[in-house]
């Protein structure tokens, strides 16, 4: 089969010299300026008389990422099967992806495909930039193999907008079994009360029992789980695409929301189970502290496997359990999507790429097999089974634009953790801020 490997994969395999790569990079930089007015982004494939389409693709996979080679292998496999489509992958960090898409959308120069986090999809939908893929989706034979929860994030009024799920980052309770044993904690905690009890025993043994994020993109993803576990949501649909936070409408709900804030406050201040510094931790600090066993447990994702190489001793005893709950077991499904846009000049090729990465062949490859969005792809292992077992209790964000709301969630919890407001004040303020944000966004 004819292969059209990318310059990046050539370098990875050592098939291209650095000079050649730089030459290609220079050509790639110069090419759009020269060719765009003449032939759009399609170029003639030399010697074949066949048109090669270049798909501009933004992804957060950097060359130093543990998954890089596996992810590049997926691109290679796609290009091997589609010699007339060349995927031009550009690395953009997770933090910058949404910004870049927002700016590009304003400038009318969006790429063809972007790797997107679940919380960005409703924002893009509100911006009106997502491609309507309903027809292609309906005609796709493999669609039923995808987990229902993963499809919910791209379903708007029974239409499939934007893209396909391709990567599942399920959160689980991760703990250092040796530290638990040392402190006399026999089993991982099942409930919030168990977590406090275990944390107190660990504290007696001089080990900080638990950690969480006080800020960063991870913080809202962590705290939403505790609201779900207390039978609440940050916003509930009220019909016609509108939403509302109902905590202040109902004293019982407000009490349960307050419980979540109180739980966080107690873990840090009343019981001293969580280090005070965690009020300002981002995900790097949380992951590093868990990997180095500076904290005995945290709610975290399967990407922690990447820390095993650097911390083989401290990561050796890591074990998994469902996230301790209050009323209803729940976990966060971080579903990554491959998204294409309404203005893409190559809709057919973009769909071809989307369909491939969510297809069985790609999902069975090393890049995805541990985090597959498909129920017909099964894998076993320490870093797979405990996470995939939690899919049934997995939940995703409501379909609201989260920009302002995420910030309000971070502010509300930091206010409590830094003792600037009480749990009840924080719950009330957050409820009001969420509704104000929904109104401003036209979703109230």
């Amino acid at each position, binding site marked *: 089969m004819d292969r059209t490997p990318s310059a990046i994969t050539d370098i990875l395999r050592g098939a291209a010299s650095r000079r050649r790569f730089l030459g290609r990079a220079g050509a790639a930089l110069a090419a759009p300026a020269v060719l765009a007015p003449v032939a759009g982004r399609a170029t003639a494939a030399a010697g074949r008389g066949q048109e090669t389409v270049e798909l501009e693709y933004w992804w957060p996979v950097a060359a130093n990422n543990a998954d890089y080679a596996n992810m590049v292998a997926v691109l290679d496999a796609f290009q091997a099967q589609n010699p007339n489509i060349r995927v031009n992958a550009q690395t953009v960090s997770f933090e910058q992806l949404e910004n870049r898409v927002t700016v590009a959308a304003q400038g009318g120069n969006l790429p063809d495909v972007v790797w997107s986090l679940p919380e960005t999809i409703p924002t893009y939908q509100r911006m009106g930039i997502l491609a309507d893929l309903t027809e292609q989706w309906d005609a796709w034979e493999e669609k039923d193999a995808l987990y229902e929860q993963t499809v919910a994030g791209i379903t708007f009024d029974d239409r499939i907008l934007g893209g396909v799920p391709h990567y599942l980052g399920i959160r689980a309770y991760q703990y250092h079994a040796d530290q638990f044993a040392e402190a006399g904690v026999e089993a991982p905690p099942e409930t919030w009360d168990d977590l406090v009890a275990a944390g107190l025993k660990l504290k007696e043994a001089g080990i900080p029992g638990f950690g969480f994020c006080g800020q960063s993109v991870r913080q809202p993803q962590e705290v939403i789980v505790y609201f779900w576990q207390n039978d609440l949501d940050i916003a509930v649909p009220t019909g016609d695409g509108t939403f509302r936070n109902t905590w202040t409408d109902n004293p019982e709900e407000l009490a349960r929301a307050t419980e979540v804030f109180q739980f966080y406050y107690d873990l840090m201040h009343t019981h001293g189970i969580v280090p005070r510094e965690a009020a*300002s931790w981002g995900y790097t600090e949380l992951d590093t502290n868990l990997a180095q066993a500076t904290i005995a447990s945290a709610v975290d994702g399967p990407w922690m496997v990447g820390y095993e190489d650097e911390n083989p001793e401290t990561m050796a005893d890591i074990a998994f359990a469902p996230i301790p709950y209050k009323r209803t077991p729940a976990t966060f499904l971080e579903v990554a999507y491959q998204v294409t846009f309404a203005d893409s000049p190559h809709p057919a090729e973009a769909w071809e790429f989307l369909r491939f990465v969510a297809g069985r062949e790609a999902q069975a490859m090393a890049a995805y097999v541990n985090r597959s969005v498909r129920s017909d792809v099964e894998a076993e292992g320490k870093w797979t089974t405990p996470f995939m077992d939690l899919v049934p209790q997995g939940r995703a964000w409501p379909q609201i634009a989260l920009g302002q709301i995420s*910030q309000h969630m971070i502010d509300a919890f930091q206010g409590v953790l830094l003792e600037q407001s009480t749990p009840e004040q924080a719950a009330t303020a957050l409820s009001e801020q969420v509704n104000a944000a929904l109104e401003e966004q036209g979703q109230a």
Partner: protein
Amino acid sequence: MGIQIARPARAAPALRLPRPLARHGFVYLFVLPSVLLLLGFTVWPLLRTFWLSVQDVNLVRPGSEFVGLANFRTQLADQTLFWPAVWHSLVWTVGSVGGEYLLGLGAAVLLNQPLRGRGLFRMLVLIPWTVPIVIAAMTWRWILQPEYGIGNVLLVRAGLLAEPVYWLGDLSTALGATIFVNVWRSFPFYTITLLAALQAVPKELLEAAAIDGASAWERFWRITLPHLKGVSLALIVLHVVWTFNNVEFIWLLTEGGPLHASETLATLVYRMAFRTFEISEAAALSVMMIVLLLLVGGGYAVLGRRREERRTT
């Protein structure tokens, strides 16, 4: 027979360019690209920002409407984010520029002495300035970590701290720690610039003052420092503008946190535009920042003119 002289046929009137264009056509041609760039990348975005500031545009809500000065009023009435950010911007700018100037001047005076290995020291002092901002910020985040940061370890071992402090994560220290890191990174620029100016101070003046019995401090205060005035003013004004507008360093170190404790106007604009998509309110904030900086620029121009007038009289 008389000789008839044929009248020459009337020549077609030549294309007459306006006199300035005819005289300086090539000059205008050469200037044109810069003017176009200026219009495209400075004037147009500025005008667009002004226009957005009087609109109500939120990227996640379709449509927009003219709202006059409402966005400005909203910001000026905001006691939770806007006014703290104004204060933090002032502290951040004055603290950074003041610290950079003092440290830069001190290092420049030291490096102007006939020290052994002066060339090496001059090279070493440049290192913080040459480190890319991202790397400097990431390194300092690691150094200032309470759990595994080398900075805290050293301070505790030296007995200067009883226990590690989360410098970038504490409400009371976040802004100060950010200023400290910024000063560390930027002072070499002052050092090198002031060192060049120091070397231009006439040595005979200093020698004459020494012979007349002036102390080292008096020579510095009455001769050296006045000679640095022009360079210092330019340095300070430039850095006030750069520091006031700086987003990346604060964002990389604290993201304006915790709980907006290190949030400046610049990071607030970034947050509103690219995190919460409140484009019009971000534009209104930007316009206010432009006005503030124009006042600083205007003050600099007035000072410069007065100085020039004093020199000529």
